[in-house]
């Protein structure tokens, strides 16, 4: 009996006598044994986490692109509106506030002071 025929008989669950059959029995037993090739326990969780991170990065990128496109359209709309309406900037209102130079300068200095205080006191505390 050929090896091929023997294997076919084996597959059909029919055992033949003899050394070849015995050897095939050993081979089939070894082949049907579970080898030790396992992935780590948290493998599935790791993949899902990776995918979630990937999706978050992707959506962040989409938001950035949308913001840039939105900005460009806003500027374009402004330019078109200026051209179509023949708009000219009128800075005459500055004449009215020219007599309050001290108040305006104090305002600027106060805002800068607040920013500085925020930087050295509040943000430093938060980082600790």
């Amino acid at each position, binding site marked *: 009996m050929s090896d091929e025929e023997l294997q076919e008989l084996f597959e059909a669950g029919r055992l033949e006598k003899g050394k070849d059959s015995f050897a095939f029995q*050993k*081979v089939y037993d070894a082949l049907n044994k*579970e080898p030790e*090739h*396992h*992935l780590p326990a948290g493998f*599935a969780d790791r993949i899902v986490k*990776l995918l979630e991170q990937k999706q978050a990065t992707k959506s962040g990128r989409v938001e950035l692109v949308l913001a840039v496109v939105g900005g460009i359209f806003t500027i374009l709309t402004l330019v078109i509106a200026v051209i179509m309406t023949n708009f000219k900037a009128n800075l005459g209102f500055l004449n009215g506030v020219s007599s309050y130079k001290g108040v305006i300068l104090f305002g600027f200095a106060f805002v800068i002071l607040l920013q500085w205080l925020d930087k050295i006191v509040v943000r430093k505390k938060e980082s600790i």
Partner: protein
Amino acid sequence: MDDRALVSQILAGNMQAFRMLIKLNERLVAHMVSKLVSNKEEHEEICQDVFLKVFDKLREFNFQSKLSTWIATIAYRHAINSLRKNRLLTRDLPEDDNLDRLFVTEETPEDILGDKDMDEYLVRLIAKLPAQYKLVLSLYHLEGLNYQEIGTITGMPEGTVKNYLFRARTLLKEKIKKHLAEPEL
């Protein structure tokens, strides 16, 4: 949950369903990749890439085969490509008629006698088989896939799959036969 329900849940954004898909198929993918890649770190990295690819391509799955067969096909192609990239595949893909020449062990009968039993020796012999043979044997004997399914995964004709199985088993049988005592049947 059947393949259709599982896929539609994943496509609807249910990551719990994808976690389930991984758990259902990680054993199959791990076994397949292990037959082609022996390095443990590389093995895990390829398995990870396989599931990331499955997630990306899931929309393309058309239910023409079982989901596990489709995943195994991706795993096979990905592992083969990574072997090709690392130029490890050429020596591991034997021509049809030189398997015997490639599958040579330098063990003496004394080495074999040193083994605990014949099973250990067989495991070592199987590990020395060319990758494609190991893969086909594993898919058939451990995963219980039929010739057609193995053919779909590996792209081999059914006849080739059958031939690989018969030849590998015959070769293993011949190797151990001379060291076996006459059975008492």
